[in-house]
């Protein structure tokens, strides 16, 4: 072979190799572009670009990653149904137990956010029962704790986090919130003595007013019966005293529930902004 021919073949070889290298990179580039858009929180465009890869990638190399990223983009855009659809496809496309686990956790996280607690717990139980994920029990308990947080069951949440570590940061937080909540049943029970349920929930003015109304109508009812004015006694007793007495019980329960809602909302707000590695 002459030297010219040798050079010719080397040039061709290098050119084709480079072309091949760039060709392989075109899908990777597209994926990186979509990922960049995702990282910039431009979720709409990120979804478009990921979908473009999905549509054109006949080799299906990117199927798992793109479906998962589309799911994440939809989730971040608040479109949970679409996100669920793509995570489910990604789960089907997953090729390793780790990928499968990650997709299932993403689906569970959406169920947590949607407060479809039963579904989330069922899926977590199924993961815990799977021998493939025996090394993930802490993570499973972690998400179980979050499921209970979103279903307003702070004691169970604390117990789930405690299984990871007795003094887990979130276990302590859940404990403190659980201890801080009012018992609606206790508030109702205390209201047998008018006003005490309101005092229990810290609504002192409302408690005093409740006592006032009940003393007034109670006195008038008893007084009417003592003076043999049976009809007056029955009317005042049923239409007024009983109405205020039962209202006092309902009122105490309502206060307890309202205060609890305020406390749990404040706790969720706090959890949203504190620095924790993983959140739903």
């Amino acid at each position: 072979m002459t030297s010219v021919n040798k050079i010719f073949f080397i040039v061709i070889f290098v050119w084709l190799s480079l072309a091949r290298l760039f060709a392989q990179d075109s899908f990777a580039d597209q994926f990186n572009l979509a990922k960049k858009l995702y990282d910039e929180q431009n979720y709409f465009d990120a979804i478009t670009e990921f979908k473009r890869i999905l549509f054109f990638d006949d080799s299906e190399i990117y199927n798992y990653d793109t479906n998962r990223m589309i799911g994440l983009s939809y989730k971040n855009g608040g479109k949970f149904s679409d996100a669920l659809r793509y995570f489910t496809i990604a789960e089907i496309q997953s090729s390793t137990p780790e990928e499968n686990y990650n997709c299932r956790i993403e689906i569970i996280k959406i169920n947590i956010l949607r407060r479809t607690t039963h579904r989330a717990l069922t899926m977590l139980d199924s993961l815990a029962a799977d021998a493939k994920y025996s090394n993930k029990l802490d993570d499973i308990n972690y998400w179980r704790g979050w499921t209970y947080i979103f279903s307003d069951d702070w004691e169970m949440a604390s117990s789930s986090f405690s299984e990871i570590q007795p003094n887990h940061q979130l276990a302590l937080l859940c404990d403190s919130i659980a201890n801080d909540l009012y018992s609606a049943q206790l508030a109702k029970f205390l209201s047998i003595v008018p006003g005490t349920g309101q005092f229990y929930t810290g609504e002192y003015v409302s408690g005093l007013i409740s006592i006032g109304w009940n003393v007034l109508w109670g006195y008038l009812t008893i007084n009417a019966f003592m003076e043999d004015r049976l009809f007056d006694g029955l009317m005042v007793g049923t239409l007024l005293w009983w109405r205020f007495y039962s209202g006092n019980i309902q009122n105490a329960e309502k206060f307890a529930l309202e205060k609890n809602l305020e406390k749990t909302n404040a706790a969720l707000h706090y959890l949203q902004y504190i620095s924790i590695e993983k959140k739903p």
Partner: protein
Amino acid sequence: MRYLLTFFFLIPFSSLPQSTSFDFHSLENIKKFADHLFCEEDYLRAIEQYELIQKQLSNDTIEFKVMYGYSELGLFGKSNELFEGCNYESVFYPDAYLLSLKNQLIIASRLINDSSISSFNSFQKKSFNKLTTISMLYDDEFDIPKEKFISPFDEEEQNSVSSFYDYKVEPQYKSPTLAGIMSAIIPGSGKMYVGEWGDGITALFATSLFAFLAYDNFSADHTTRAWIFTGLGAFFYAGNIYGSVASAQIFNVRIDFDFNNGLELFLQQQNYFLPEYDFCK
């Protein structure tokens, strides 16, 4: 032989790039992708992609798809803006025209006065007749015989259309004045006339009770208590008249609301009598 071996060696390198090198943003590929998104009913992204290539690859199919996409997204005004630029000679013009009428009906909820066009085929003509006829229900001056009104519709549609016609001609309104007068004569009867039997009986019972208590206390010379009960009785009596009038008005609003909702639902189920397009088959 050496050349042959070298050539053979290079084949994989030359074929692989062709199979994997890819221009995602060529006109043809953008169009393919947009078509895919359109068929996935991801209209917003499909429109975005079509608009990228519309200048270079403009055709009436794309224009109609964009118009259709906007309509499906609920951007009816935007969809109709596109119709204004639609070419009359286009094969899609009759479909675009029908789509614009649908958009117009949803936006304005009023009678469609537009005329038919000669390029309609028989199905499109039928769709047009149905759409214009049903739009009469939105007109205040509704005056058409029932037989004529239901005649453009298919047999399975006629039952629903007929009930809408009856609603329109004889709405089951309740008179607020009558309800008020009835409650003034017999407390609660106005409420019962509107169909709120529970409230009516309660009003009758409460007003009668306070009237009796007032009478009884006046008879027993408990004047203060008697006046308290008189005041309460008068309050309940006046409240029951006011409540009866308000209930009749609410009842009438509900009738209109149910009618409009039912009509909208029916039209959605019938896809506004528009044909199914086969872009994705």
